[in-house]
């Protein structure tokens, strides 16, 4: 059989560059939006469940910002910080890092959500920071799912390291202050498909995983739920057969930029 070749074409987009305006402050913030701070309402789910997060801990670090894909990084902060995005922020999120920069439009961001043994508190409590460091977690979510008189608690830690790069933003600095937002989409944890462009939110399979009926859905119970015969919960070319593996993979998609902006992601265990 003769076949050949997969040629990848890369197109570099034109980048903005610095100009002759006045320097100012460029800040990076992190925000979990209303879905994490206030919860995910039942109307968002296709099975009537709603979610309230008690904690939504994220270990974020290696934040860097540049003007253009080949531009020098004006922010290049290696530190890892742990944030509890379930804490109310009044809609503005929490500060991560900042720098005084020359005037310009800064349009390339990268960051990692990964475990770090040296992470420090962003806004998280000291006990939570220690738990994340000791447990080797990148993300930790705890809360309750509710539907009518039913409720299921969950507390799940994820060790998956994800590098987000080439996040496209347009932060303009000209003698003033500009902010870039790392946005965390907490609803992705409850998506029912890894490949669909329009996945639904669902909690029924997670509730069904509670085999011992103690109303606490554990990692072990999720890992014991085979999804291979499900019409939903498609995984594309990934070799994932259980619900925990599915959710763990889904966690690598939570990072965004400035709300709905996307990044190139690389997953590392």
């Amino acid at each position, binding site marked *: 059989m003769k076949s050949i070749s997969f*040629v990848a074409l890369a197109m570099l987009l034109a980048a903005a560059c610095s100009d002759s305006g006045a320097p100012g402050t460029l800040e990076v913030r992190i925000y979990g939006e209303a879905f994490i701070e206030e919860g995910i309402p039942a109307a968002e789910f296709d099975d009537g469940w709603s979610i309230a997060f008690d904690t939504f801990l994220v270990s974020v670090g290696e934040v860097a910002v540049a003007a253009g894909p080949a531009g020098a990084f004006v922010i290049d902060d290696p530190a890892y910080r742990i944030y509890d995005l379930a804490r109310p922020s009044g809609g503005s999120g929490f500060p991560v890092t900042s720098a005084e920069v020359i005037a310009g439009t800064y349009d390339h961001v990268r960051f990692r959500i990964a475990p770090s043994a040296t992470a420090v508190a962003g806004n998280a409590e000291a006990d939570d920071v220690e738990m994340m460091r000791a447990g080797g977690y990148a993300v930790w979510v705890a809360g309750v799912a509710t539907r009518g008189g039913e409720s299921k608690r969950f507390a799940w830690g994820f060790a998956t390291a994800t590098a987000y790069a080439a996040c496209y933003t347009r932060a303009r600095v000209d003698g003033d202050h500009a902010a870039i937002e790392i946005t965390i989409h907490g609803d992705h944890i409850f998506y029912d498909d890894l490949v669909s462009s329009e996945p639904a939110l669902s909690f029924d399979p997670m509730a069904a995983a509670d085999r011992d009926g103690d109303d606490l859905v554990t990692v072990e119970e999720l890992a014991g739920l085979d999804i*291979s015969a499900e019409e939903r919960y498609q995984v*594309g*070319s990934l070799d994932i057969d259980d619900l925990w593996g599915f959710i763990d993979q889904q966690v690598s998609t939570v990072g965004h930029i400035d709300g709905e902006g996307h990044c190139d992601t690389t997953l590392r265990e």
Partner: protein
Amino acid sequence: MTGDVLIDWTDDGAPLGTARLLSGDYQSANFTLRRAGDSDGLAADDPVRGHTFHIEGVASQAGQSLPFQAVLDIDEGTRMIGALFPVRITDDATGPLVMQVLTVDPFEGDTMFDGVDFARLPLSGGGPRVDIVPGQDAHNILRRRVQVHDHYAIAVFTIP
């Protein structure tokens, strides 16, 4: 390589197309799945028409054999990412590459048909054959397995 192809995996040696590769060390390849349609020149009653896969064979166990047929529907445009492609292409490299389907995962030893219990599938009308069709658990299992990247590879063709 651009363009749509319909691959008969049992037809060893059928050309799929040509292209020029950049020299370098390759590790993996991607392709996109689709539904077979009018552009494939299929007969009106071809079983793969309107579907992504048509698999026909015989499942055997403990001396018993059961013919089966499966038609699998995968969303148009679904990408298969990470087929094995451990090949070094040099500046003067020529010759064919082969695209392979690996029914047995070379890393983990699992097969494309793991989880499909042929003995429990209903026989199709009148004949000793089972049909795996959309809506069945077996279809969902098989549809998932055929998309796993470990089941595909591209290798340099060598004359036996």
